[in-house]
């Protein structure tokens, strides 16, 4: 629709429109985090007086209050990092292996398996949550990270992305060449295929990590011990506590604490993530 209006406009005008739109969008993406970090530096009394766009000097005081508070946030951060890293790594390694199995080998039932995985890709994990929860109870894995990590080996979305990527970026002649050089199939996968998949692996690692890091529904069903809880569960607890009785400065510090590590890592990796997607990408 917007494009229609620009019909025949000069490059210069179109560029100006693009920049203005992008700046507005940037504002809407960052404003919330700006307010969050500003408010994390202000005391409860200062916050009660209303919003100002400038930081105060109560950050350390708020932080100390949080550390001595009731929610085990540092513990939660470590738990989240462990679960997200391990499930991300397992997910990309084995789901790429699955994509490779269907890409490079012509075995019986290959087409049927591909269609089947495409179909299960659309089924939300919450639909099987009841059975999953009962399974976890039967395996005595309540309050364990195993049911949050191991199932990510079968990641249909990663599989699909990798399969698409292989179709345009992994010529089978390379696999043939590796065979002629005497490379075993497993070795070929690890030493030839995986390095070629690096941009896609990085992108999917990030998606898988984020998916697990953000995951609230399933961990909330399984983790009940305070020591085992991941960050999203602690945030939910913060919300369900009697919110108005909290020190608001501390509330902002807790939210900032749970998203800051990701923002810091992202500042260093963002170019790589976006570049990786753009360079490799899903080709139409």
């Amino acid at each position, binding site marked *: 629709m917007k494009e229609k209006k620009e*019909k025949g406009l000069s490059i210069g005008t179109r560029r100006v429109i693009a920049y203005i739109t992008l700046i507005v969008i940037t504002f809407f993406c960052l404003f919330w985090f700006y307010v969050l970090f500003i408010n994390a530096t202000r005391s409860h009394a200062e916050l009660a007086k209303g919003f100002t766009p400038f930081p105060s000097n109560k950050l350390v005081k708020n932080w100390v209050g949080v550390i001595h508070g009731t929610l085990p946030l540092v513990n939660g951060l470590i738990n989240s990092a462990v679960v997200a890293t391990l499930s991300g790594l397992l997910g990309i390694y084995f*789901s790429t292996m699955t994509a490779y199995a269907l890409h490079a080998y012509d075995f019986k039932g290959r087409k049927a398996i591909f269609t089947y995985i495409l179909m299960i890709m659309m089924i939300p994990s919450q639909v099987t949550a009841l059975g999953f*929860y009962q*399974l976890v109870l039967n395996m005595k894995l309540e309050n364990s990270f195993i049911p949050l990590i191991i199932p990510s080996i079968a990641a249909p979305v990663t599989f699909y992305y990798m399969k698409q990527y292989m179709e345009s970026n992994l010529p089978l002649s390379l696999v043939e060449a590796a065979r002629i050089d005497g490379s075993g199939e497993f070795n070929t996968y690890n030493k030839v295929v995986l390095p070629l998949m690096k941009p896609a692996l990085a992108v999917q690692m990030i998606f898988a990590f984020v998916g697990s890091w953000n995951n609230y529904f399933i961990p909330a069903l399984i983790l009940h011990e305070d020591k085992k809880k991941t960050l999203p569960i602690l945030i939910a607890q913060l919300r369900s506590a009697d919110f108005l009785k909290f020190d608001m400065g501390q509330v902002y510090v807790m939210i900032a604490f749970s998203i800051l590590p990701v923002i810091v890592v992202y500042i260093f990796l963002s170019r790589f993530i976006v570049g990786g997607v753009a360079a490799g990408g899903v080709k*139409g």
Partner: protein
Amino acid sequence: MKQHKSKVVSYNKWGYIFLAPFAITYIIFSLIPLITTVYNSFFENYRSGLTQIGPNFVGLGNFATLLSNGDLAMYFSNTMIMWVMGFIPQILLSLLLGAWFSDPQLRLKCAGFFKSVIYLPNLIMASAFAMLFFTLFSDTGPINSILISLGIGQFKFMTHVWSVRALVAFMNLLMWFGNTTILLMAGMLGIDTALFEAAQVDGATSTQVFFKITLPLLRPILIYVMITSLVGGLQMFDVPQILTNGSGDPMRSSMTLIMYLNKHLFSKNYGLAGALSVLLFFITGILSLIVFKVTNTKVE
């Protein structure tokens, strides 16, 4: 690792070997839970105070219970309303931004910076983001403080049906449009530039190029984006759950299907939770099929 001499046959067995970890994990952690979930849906099994009722076989009784009261339809429409409110602006914005970022004529400066910024909200933990919005938009929060200082006056965001829904949709939009933009842009960059050059030589405007070349060639990726977003929309949980503290208020107007499921899971009503899961399974299946049919895709 020793190689067998009979090439074709011995190579292809590796297909099964490489498939095995995925298949075994899937069967244990997804297929068996799916089957037991369906099994549960046929049994009356819940707690009433301190007494455990069931499990007793009730056939389709749980489904009848679910469908006979209006809650399910209400939660379904809540979920779809909030998804559509987020998805339509998302796909339009993403197409526009994707077209700009991949336009070789436009040569936007700082494109890398803008792409990084729009992807950022996707990495933010949904529950923390919802908690942040709850704090910012609370009656005494900074947004209301700004509204009052602008002379607009206080607006109680959490007590109006459409403001809560709009907040949920807006958060979903913010969290997902960067991801969609990057996916679409990658697809647009994958299009053979010779096509664009040829169109330019023929005097096509950028609008014509977008609608006649870019969009048709993007169809596979658009389908992918739409399907994943739809499934994501049906799974909508974290944001409304945290924003409304699980109540779906006002008047359960922002209660989603998964929040409803979560309620039954926590109150240990396994019969109704199972029946609801089975219904969700079918709704997901039907909606996916509709998307496939409408977009007339050919899944290879």
